[in-house]
Structures are given as structure tokens and as C-alpha cells.
């Protein structure tokens, strides 16, 4: 595509844009297209879809606003951004909801046509903000998107409803022009998706192009922006969300271990997509059971694990709560099992479509009796892939349940992922007992794992269950000393996993005044906050935990090399409490529970405050 020479082009290192409109306006799709194209042209990026918990909240209302935030740049990008530079507002409600977050002097592209009486009233505006000067602190571009889309599509033979649904692509066209992106990837996507309906291909393509050429041909925008390619490691990339990565990770683990994958699950936001993705992979022999409830989800997985499958169950907080009792059964039967918990806002139903990190203590301690499990957490969308494999590996090697924590933000958010080759992934060894004469169901190998004999194998018939078992023989045992021993062995087994946990790496100086620690999905926010703090001249190091139970071997030592420890979490201090308990250190906490990723600037401010301001 030729560049328009008459308009000024400004180079930017990174930009944060927000597409916002009604739940029915297709904002998630628009955002995804912009992301894919942006990834395609070589920017790094990070996304934050944000939608209401109603399916289609009434049109035009503020609670019906659906948003898609996207941060891209020519450097590495770690978060979807605190505050957008550009807001695309398809209606007054979308403007109202998102304006408070927009950067000072930010750009607003508003669909002028929708700022009519009815919609203004629904959004509870007395006057049109496009006309009352209330937006004077911003650069406002009112565009008659609806009218122009109708005009552009008049030859496509579409129903009025279909035409109306295409206006998001007009807006997308504007954005493509503004940020100098090619139309081709989206046009191809349109052809593939709507190939069967010529009219829809016509409509969507025309709307996209109309938006693009409108921007180029009118005087409305004086400046265009360019965000150059990011310096990314060589390789083949794709855009991936955390849930998709998690699903792929388990398919990979199944291949790497040679075990069939079984998923027992009950749908729940924001975990359902893992079930959706996996149910497509029948070619890989994956069996997915949509169970009657979460309890059946996990207990069916326990049954499948007893049967020799790589068995997993996926859920979110309230579902994890329902799985507690059965997790205890997996602990005492010492069966391999992976439990994925995609955290969302709690307690109870709480904020079901929002992100949070407040299930850590539940994962650690939420079972009756002394019932230890491994707990690990993914940090970014693509990291979910590796952590799913890691969870499977630990569960199979140690014959124990492993809880993998992700969260709504990384589950739904997407980022470019340098795809690994299948043969670069380490195989997962699965041992089976071979000598029936020497078989004891609670015998233990060097990792304290018991042997995994599966039904159908002659000579290894045995019974397991929830009553305490004698070590080695596996017979039901009420012996007091045996119980004490078994409680300690089960705990010890999880401790031994430490051998597989990589040492914690420090980003920055290896010792100093301040270390900022986080875990799981806050990785990007904290990383960006620390970079910002350093840019202000502050000396600060950073480390991010992916293994919580057990911790990395060197954690104690790492902590002891800093005067102060700041722990930033999207909860009220759950990791902080575990670290205090284990290392008796007076950590400083940064906690926000807004159902959103932590704001980078707030963490930076906290760092600055601790270190006595910018140097």
C-alpha cells in the first residue's frame, strides 16, 4: 500500500488504543483483527478484552459497554497499558465509561451518528459531549460512521441489520489508516470467514476500505502515526491467548508423555475456552467430558487418571471451591492430576468476567486435613503453554495433583508467541511397574512417587481409596504412626519437587535496596513498572514467581540480598502471607483489587515512594 505523502507521519515507540462500543457492536472482533494485523507487521503487543457479565446488556447503556484494549510498540510490550492514547467510541455510553481512563490530550474517534437523543439519554448525558466543550482536553474526531457505512454498502445487498453490524469495520479502517497498517490480513480473514456469503464479504470489505479511504481523503486527520517493527527474537510467530495456549500445552503434554488426554470440566467464565479448544482436538485422541458439575469434572478426571490417562480438570474460583473435597482424594490416592484454575474476581460469583489473583491461598490450603498439592502459576498468555506442560510433567513424575493458576487477564489477553518446534519440547517419561511379584501399590521411588499400575494390566490388580493407606503395602490402615508418617511423606513429596524447580532469576542487580516480587499474571505490569522506575533513575530489582509450592530453592537467599521487599498482587496480600510465613521477612505490600490488571504507574509510584522518590 502506498503511503499518503501529503500528511505528516509521526513515529511513536508505543501506543495504547481502546475500541469500545455496545456488546453487540463487535468490539472484541475489531480488537482482535487490529491485534492480528499489528502482530503481523511485527510489533510486540498485549491485549485486554473487557466485556460485561451480561450477554447483550441493553443497547446503549453504560453497563452494556464492551471494550478491547491493545498496547503495541516497537519495543517489547508487557501490558495492555494503563491509559489509552486513542479511544474509539461507537456510542455515548462507550465514551462515558472509557473517558476517565483516556490519557490527557488523547484522541477520541467517536461515531457521531450514535450521539442522538436516545443514546445520550441511555448513557445519562444531558447534552452531547461532542458539542458542549466538555472534551476540550482531548483531540476529538467525530465521524459519521453509521451513515458512511450505509452509503458504502448500499450495493452489497445486505439487510439493514447486517449493514449496521459492519460499522465496526469502518472504524477499523480508520484505525488502520491512522496507524499505517495494511488492510490485507483482515481482507483475507473476511474472505475466509464469510466466503460462503458473497454479500457479507462485500459488506465487510467495503466498510473496512471505506473507513481507510475516508481517513486518507478527508482533511479530518492531519497526522498519521508509525510504530516500527519491534526487535523480536527470530522465529515463526502467532498470536495466542492464555486459554488457547493452555489447551495447546496439554495436547503437547499428551504427545510428549504418550498418554491420552482426558479433560473433565464444567463450563465457567473465564475458563470455558480451554474446554472449547480441547474439544476440537479429537485428532489427538483428546477426550473431553462436559460434566454435570465441577465435582463430576474432577472426579471423572480422577477416574480417568486411575485408568492411565493424562487427566486434567479446568475451572475458575467457585469451581475450584467445589473441587476441594475431590482434590483431597487425589492427594491421598496419589494419582497424577492437573487442576487448572483461571482466576476471576471473587468472593462467590463476585466479578465473573474480571481478573484477579485471589485464589492462591485456596489453592495452597483449601482442603481438609494436611493435604499438600503443588501450585504453579503462568505469567503471560504464551507462558500458559509451557506451564501446562510443566504441570503435567510434575503430576506424572511425582504422582500428585498439581494446581496451575492462570487468570482472566492472561487467559483472554493475547500476545505474539514465538512458536517452538515440537521436537524442541522435552519428552515426559512415564514409568509403569513391570514386575507383579514386587508390586506394592504404595511403594515409592526416589521421588517418593508410588507406582502407577493401570487397569487392564494383569497381575497388578489393587485397590486405592480415600481411607488412609499403609505406606508400601497400600492396605487400609488405622495405625497411628503410619498416619503420621503418611502425612509427612505426602508433604515431603511436594517439597522434593523443588529439585525440578528452576532457580528464581533476578532482573536487575542481584542485591540492593529493593526487590519487587510478583507471581503469575501480574508479570507484565510489574516488569513495565520496574522499567519505568529505572527510567526515573531508581535502582530496583525484580523477580517473578511461577512456582509457589514448592518455592524455588534459592528464594530465601534472593530475598535476603535486599533491604526491602515489595510484593505486588492483585489481591490483599496472599503471596506476601506465604513469604512472611516461610521467611519471616517484613515485606511491603502493594495490593489492588479492581478486577483489572495492576496499573503500571501505581506500582512505579510505590517503588518511588519506598525509595524516597526519583533520583
Amino acid at each position, binding site marked *: 500500500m502506498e503511503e499518503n505523502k501529503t500528511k505528516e507521519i509521526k513515529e511513536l515507540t508505543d501506543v495504547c488504543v481502546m475500541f469500545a462500543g455496545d456488546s453487540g457492536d463487535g468490539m472484541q472482533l475489531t480488537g482482535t483483527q487490529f491485534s492480528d494485523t499489528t502482530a503481523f507487521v511485527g510489533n510486540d503487543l498485549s491485549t485486554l478484552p473487557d466485556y460485561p457479565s451480561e450477554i447483550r446488556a441493553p443497547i446503549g447503556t453504560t453497563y452494556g459497554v464492551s471494550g478491547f484494549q491493545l498496547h503495541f510498540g516497537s519495543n517489547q510490550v508487557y501490558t495492555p497499558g494503563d491509559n489509552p492514547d486513542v479511544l474509539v467510541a461507537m456510542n455515548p455510553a462507550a465514551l462515558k465509561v472509557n473517558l476517565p481512563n483516556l490519557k490527557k490530550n488523547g484522541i477520541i474517534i467517536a461515531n457521531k451518528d450514535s450521539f442522538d437523543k436516545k443514546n445520550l439519554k441511555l448513557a445519562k448525558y444531558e447534552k452531547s459531549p461532542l458539542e458542549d466543550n466538555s472534551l476540550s482536553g482531548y483531540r476529538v474526531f467525530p465521524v459519521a460512521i453509521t451513515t458512511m457505512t450505509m452509503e458504502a454498502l448500499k450495493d452489497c445487498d445486505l439487510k439493514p441489520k447486517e449493514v449496521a453490524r459492519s460499522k465496526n469495520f469502518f472504524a477499523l479502517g480508520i484505525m488502520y489508516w491512522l496507524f499505517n497498517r495494511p488492510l490485507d490480513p483482515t481482507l483475507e480473514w473476511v474472505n475466509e470467514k464469510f466466503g460462503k456469503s458473497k454479500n457479507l464479504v462485500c459488506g465487510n470489505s467495503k466498510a473496512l476500505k471505506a473507513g481507510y479511504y475516508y481517513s486518507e481523503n478527508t482533511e479530518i486527520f492531519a497526522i498519521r502515526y508509525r510504530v516500527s517493527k519491534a526487535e523480536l527474537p527470530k522465529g515463526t510467530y502467532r498470536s495466542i491467548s492464555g486459554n488457547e495456549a493452555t489447551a495447546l500445552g496439554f495436547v503437547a503434554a499428551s504427545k510428549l508423555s504418550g498418554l491420552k488426554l482426558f479433560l473433565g470440566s464444567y463450563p465457567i467464565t473465564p475458563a470455558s475456552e480451554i474446554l472449547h479448544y480441547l474439544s476440537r482436538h479429537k485428532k489427538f485422541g483428546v*477426550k473431553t467430558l462436559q460434566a454435570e458439575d465441577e465435582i463430576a469434572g474432577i472426579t471423572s478426571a480422577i477416574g480417568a487418571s486411575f485408568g492411565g490417562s493424562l487427566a486434567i480438570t479446568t475451572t475458575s474460583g467457585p469451581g475450584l471451591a467445589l473441587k476441594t473435597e475431590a482434590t483431597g482424594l487425589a492427594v491421598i490416592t496419589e494419582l497424577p492430576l492437573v487442576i487448572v484454575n483461571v482466576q476471576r474476581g471473587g468472593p462467590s460469583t463476585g466479578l465473573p468476567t474480571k481478573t484477579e489473583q485471589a485464589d492462591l491461598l485456596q489453592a495452597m490450603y483449601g482442603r481438609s486435613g494436611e493435604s499438600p498439592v503443588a501450585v504453579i502459576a503462568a505469567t503471560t498468555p504464551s507462558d500458559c503453554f509451557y506451564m501446562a506442560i510443566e504441570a503435567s510433567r510434575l503430576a506424572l513424575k511425582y504422582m500428585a495433583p498439581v494446581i496451575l493458576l492462570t487468570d482472566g487477564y492472561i487467559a483472554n489477553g493475547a500476545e505474539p508467541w514465538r*512458536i517452538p518446534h515440537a521436537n524442541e519440547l522435552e519428552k515426559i517419561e512415564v514409568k509403569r511397574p513391570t514386575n507383579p511379584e514386587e508390586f506394592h501399590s504404595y511403594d515409592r521411588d526416589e521421588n517418593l512417587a508410588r507406582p502407577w499400575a493401570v487397569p487392564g494390566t494383569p497381575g497388578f490388580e489393587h485397590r486405592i481409596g480415600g481411607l488412609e493407606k499403609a505406606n508400601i503395602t497400600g492396605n487400609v490402615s488405622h495405625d497411628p504412626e503410619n498416619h503420621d508418617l503418611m502425612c509427612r511423606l505426602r508433604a515431603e513429596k511436594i517439597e522434593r519437587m523443588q529439585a525440578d524447580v528452576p532457580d528464581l532469576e533476578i532482573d536487575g542487580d542481584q542485591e540492593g535496596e529493593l526487590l519487587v516480587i510478583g507471581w503469575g499474571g501480574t508479570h507484565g505490569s510489574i516488569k513495565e513498572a520496574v522499567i519505568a522506575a529505572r527510567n526515573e533513575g531508581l535502582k530496583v530489582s525484580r523477580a517473578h514467581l511461577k512456582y509457589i509450592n514448592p518455592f524455588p530453592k534459592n528464594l530465601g537467599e534472593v530475598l535476603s540480598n535486599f533491604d526491602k521487599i515489595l510484593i505486588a498482587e492483585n489481591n490483599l496480600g496472599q503471596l506476601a502471607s506465604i513469604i512472611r510465613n516461610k521467611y519471616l521477612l517484613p515485606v511491603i505490600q502493594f495490593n489492588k483489587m479492581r478486577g483489572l490488571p495492576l496499573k503500571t504507574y501505581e506500582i512505579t509510584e510505590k517503588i518511588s515512594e519506598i525509595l524516597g522518590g526519583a533520583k
Partner: protein
Amino acid sequence: MNDKIDVQELNLTAKDFQSDQDVRWCPGCGDYSVLAQVQRVFPTLGIKKENFVWVAGIGCSSRFPYYMSTYGIHGIHGRAPAIATGLKVARPDLSVWVATGDGDLMSIGGNHFIHACRKNIDLKIILFNNQIYGLTKGQYSPTSEKGKVTKSTPFGSVDYPFNPTSLALGSEATFVARTIDKETKHMKEMISRAGKHKGTAFLEVYQNCIIFNDGAYNNLTDKEIKEDNIVVLEHGEPLIFGKNLDKGIILDGFKTVVVDLNDDKHTVEDLWVHDETDESPIRAFMLSHMTDDPDMPTPIGVFRQFLKPTYDEGVQNQIDHIIETTGEGDLEELLFRGNTWTVE
């Protein structure tokens, strides 16, 4: 499930199915009788020993797997059908059996039960119905009769019992049968038939808890009167019962009526002929409701057996079909599928 194997070849005996654990039920408990019959039936089913799995919940009866020398899992309270579902779906080659109590299956496990029936998972579910919570020492259960005085209902319960066979039929179970702990020959046949059914087989066993609910089934087990209180269902046969086989059951519209074959009004020809294979569960539902009717004898035998594809084979077939038509999955291909781009 795998093709049946020649029984001679397997050469198994009841003893081969006894585990090395001492059986710990109360002396005189009806559970012993089920164990004995299962151990007698298993060698005759043409299934290798290592392919049997027993799954149980919690309760006296749920200790069952420990006493069988097959693979087994003693689960948690109420969840046996769900554990068994996962096992069977993952491993359709196994013969999966569930041992459960009226508390385990009808109270806490009710949902898993009705869903297993609905999905027609190929499980054999044996309900030890003693109308009481045995292991927790005698609270009433969802199958206890109204007015039951127990530790938790000192003034008598005020709720109505489930009829397990009705619930199974309401959930579209494909095999529904009943037997009695004391009727060992009949029980043996029922276990064998359940074992041979493909699909969810539900077998209710009336089981006496000698400690907390002794005599609950006296009218069905007392030699003097039992024949007047039981009607044995046999496919294709008229419903006849009574000590002298002189009573029969006819249908009067939607009502079942007992008739005396000695009076001159009715002959065997008039009687309801049992048809267990009817696709519609209506007949079976009527039989089931005779249980609740004090004027009618209690039916034992197979209420219904109907074949339709099972869930577990449905899942397997879908996979097999897709692999057959499009080939097995390739991880490399999967990873690199879709929109990708390359950074040089």
C-alpha cells in the same frame, strides 16, 4: 468393550475374585450375600480379571472394592458414578462396576446417578438399598419410609422416599432391575444380566442392615409370607405370584389390579405379560410404581432392558472416525496452524 473371551479359556473361579483383605461388615449383614454372588458371576462373564474395575463411594456397602481382587477405587461419598464415568469414557475397554448405598447414590450422589443414566454410560451400578445410613450409625435415608424414627428423626421423618427404580426410569436408564439379598439365585441372575447389558445397568438390591434397620424387608424375606408379597418379573411371562402361584396381575386402564386365579373370573390369559424390551419406559414405570402401592406385590427382576448407543462409545467413535478420515494429529502442524508470521 473388548469382545468377550471364552469362559473356559479364562478358567477363573469365584476364589480368584476374593481379595486378601478380611471382610469387615457386621456378621449377618446383607452385603455379604452380594459379594458372594458377584464373585460367583464374574468368572462367567467372559471378561479377563484385570479388565474389571470396582468403583465405590463411602458407606458400609462402598467398602465393596476392598473385598474384590480386581482393580478398584474407593472414592468419596456420592461420587462413584462420576469417577466411574471418567474411567469408562477414558477406557471403554474396561468393565466398570459401581457399588453404592442408598445414602451414597440417592442422597449426596443423586445428580451423578441421574446423569450417568441419562448419558447411558456403560456402567453396572449396584445399589445396596438398606433404607438407612449404615456407616454413620443409623440416620434415615432418602429411601426410608415416611414416619421413620431414627437418630436424626426422633419424632419420625416427614419426607417421602424415593423409589430408586422410578428415578432411574425418569432419567431414562436403559437397564433397570431389582433383587433381594436373601434371594441369592435370583440375585446371581440379575448380576449376570446387568454385567451383560451394554449401557447403564441399574440393579437395586434390597439389603438388610441387621444393626440399624433390621427387618426392613421382612415381608419380602420371611418364608411364610414372601411369596405373597413378591412378583418375579420374567420376560414374556404373565405376572403370577403367591405361594400357590394363584394370584395374578391384570391391567385395568392405568391401574394394576391383583386377581385371584382360583375364582372363576380370571385366567392366566388375562394377565399382564411382562415385556422388558419395550422402548417406551411406561410399562416399567408402572411396575416400579407397584412398589409404592400397599395393595400390590413388590416386583423383582428386570423392569426394563433397552439398547441404545452408549456415551462412551459415542465419544470413542467420534475420535476414531475423525482420525480415520483425517489422520492422527501432528503436534508440529497444530502448533504452527493458523495465522503465523516470521521474524527473520
